[in-house]
């Protein structure tokens, strides 16, 4: 796309806006402003693009652009505005996937428009890169969405020879890419597209539900690269820079997220978390009894404690129990009990999930302890109240080398004097492995919906 100086300048402003957006988003103070700067840059670029001669080739095409954008806004805006906080991760997956799909479609359309003779080979290479990576991101994000939305099991899907088959598929695609570059054949490109979609699906299948946020971050980086590839095809600095910014920062972010879980990226992508040998933890669990308590007993225990740690997890989010958790903390504080929240960085289904939920319930910031801080306090804590968390307090991460979560940093709830688990059932957590801590003699279970249980505890504490 050939553009005038004015256009280049406007797009440069947008590029600066995007860089400032990313910078802002990495600090808590400026995050929201950063996002708004990014949005402003986007609006500027899109509005300016309407003035370009490229979109005024025919009135019909211009009308189609407007109609398509209206459709996108009418579907996207309400969905994004009304989605529950608990469903945010899958929403991000979907919006990432459609971006990858759009990048693939742009590349395909340009391919059809290319003059099919005398064209530089690298032009076709750029198109193919955009198609393959965009399609993998699109299909992969779709599967990630299905896993998080529980349209399919969050468990890793494995079958014999999986890695070999996936690698073969990758090689076949590479071979076909070579063939398309040589022949510029559109039917072959369609085959590449279809196989890339299949690759996206099989790439994501073996990744366990608990690792899905890391995976979405990786696919986000992929989409960025696909967009950059479209930028090469269209000769657009704007698309190249914006796509590459996302590709590079997304790759780094993916690594930071997997570090926060104490796991390496290859481990997450290929180890089929949750299906590997759980023999170490599962043995002898069958038929073992757990201790359950009444809300009244537990209320008394909490009311007469000196220090209580609330350890929130996904169950708290599902039950929308953050406000009730705060009520309980207030009721305890009223009696002079010291209360703090022990926040595991990846509790819930996305990093920072718990901070967001508790902030919504106006929990004072100074009560939210990051994991390391909380773990220092844990030995002097009288009661650790685990609300809908499981894997993030599972001691198997420390002491069972065979366990799939071995090596993951955990909240050391097991070091508190007493442990209370509020859980719906004995079902294992998202990682699909059993938790020894449930059978610990120091542990008392209170089964039920987290919100109901907390409401009962608030009443019990007030009555105690």
């Amino acid at each position, binding site marked *: 796309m050939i553009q005038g100086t004015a256009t280049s300048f406007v797009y440069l402003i947008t590029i600066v806006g995007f*860089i400032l957006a990313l910078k802002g988003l990495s600090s808590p103070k400026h995050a929201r402003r950063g996002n708004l700067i990014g949005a402003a840059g*986007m609006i500027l670029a899109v509005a300016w693009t309407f003035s370009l001669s490229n979109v005024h080739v025919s009135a019909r095409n211009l009308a189609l652009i407007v109609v398509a954008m209206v459709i996108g806004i009418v579907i996207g805006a309400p969905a994004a505005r009304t989605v529950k906080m608990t469903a*945010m991760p899958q929403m*991000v997956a979907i919006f990432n996937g459609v*971006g990858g799909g759009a990048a693939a479609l742009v590349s395909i359309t340009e391919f059809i*428009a290319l003059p099919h003779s005398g064209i530089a080979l690298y032009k076709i290479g750029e198109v193919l890169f955009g198609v393959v990576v965009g399609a993998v991101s699109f299909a992969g994000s779709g599967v990630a969405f299905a896993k998080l939305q529980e349209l399919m099991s969050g468990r890793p899907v494995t079958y014999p020879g999986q890695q070999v088959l996936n690698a073969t598929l990758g090689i076949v695609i590479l071979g076909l890419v070579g063939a398309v570059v040589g022949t510029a054949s559109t039917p072959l490109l369609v085959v590449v597209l279809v196989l890339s979609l299949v690759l996206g699906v099989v790439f994501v299948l073996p990744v366990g539900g608990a690792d899905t946020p890391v995976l979405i971050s990786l696919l986000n980086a992929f989409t960025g690269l696909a967009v950059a590839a479209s930028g090469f095809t269209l000769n657009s600095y704007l698309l190249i820079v914006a796509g590459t910014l996302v590709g590079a920062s997304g790759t780094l*972010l993916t690594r930071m997220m997997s570090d926060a879980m104490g796991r390496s990226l290859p481990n997450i992508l290929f180890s089929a978390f949750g299906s590997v040998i759980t023999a170490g933890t599962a043995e002898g669990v069958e038929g073992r009894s757990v201790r359950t308590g009444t809300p009244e007993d537990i209320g008394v225990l909490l009311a007469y404690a000196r220090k209580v740690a609330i350890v929130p997890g996904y169950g708290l989010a599902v039950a929308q129990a953050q406000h009730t958790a705060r009520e309980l903390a207030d009721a305890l504080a009223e009696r002079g009990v010291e209360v703090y929240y022990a926040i595991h960085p990846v509790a819930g289904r996305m990093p920072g999930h718990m901070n967001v*939920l508790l902030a919504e319930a106006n929990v004072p910031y100074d009560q939210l302890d990051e994991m390391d801080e909380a773990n220092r306090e844990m030995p002097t804590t009288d009661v650790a109240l685990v609300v809908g968390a499981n894997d993030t307090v599972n001691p198997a991460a420390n002491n069972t080398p065979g366990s799939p979560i071995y090596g993951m940093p955990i909240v050391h709830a097991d070091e508190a004097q007493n442990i209370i688990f509020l859980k719906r059932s004995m079902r294992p957590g998202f990682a699909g492995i059993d938790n020894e801590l449930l059978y610990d003699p120091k542990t008392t279970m209170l089964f039920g919906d987290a919100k109901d249980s907390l409401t009962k505890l608030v009443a019990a504490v007030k009555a105690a």
Partner: protein
Amino acid sequence: MIVASSGPGLVDLLTVFVLAAFVGYEVISKVPSILHTPLMSGSNAIHGIILVGSMIVLGEAHGAAQLVLGFLAVVLATLNVVGGFVVTDRMLEMFKSRQTPRPTREPDDPKTGGTP
């Protein structure tokens, strides 16, 4: 439409690509874990810039295949932009209360103060 002879050459584009990769890597060097998800979501919105590419492709489209594909591209890219920024903003909205930490308890609060 691509005119290979005019416009920036491959090396120009590659130069910009490489520089942008370094900027992207450096600009988010230190991110606290609580911001991982909003940052992911925010950068997700930024690659919605493919909307600009989609608009141009559809604007220049000839024939049914290009029109249909371009149309779909604009719909999907718009979804990416709108959804991405709105979802990120909603996530970050939740953080605003942390700027003003409230005291853990208010002894004179009439609602809870009377509990025996």
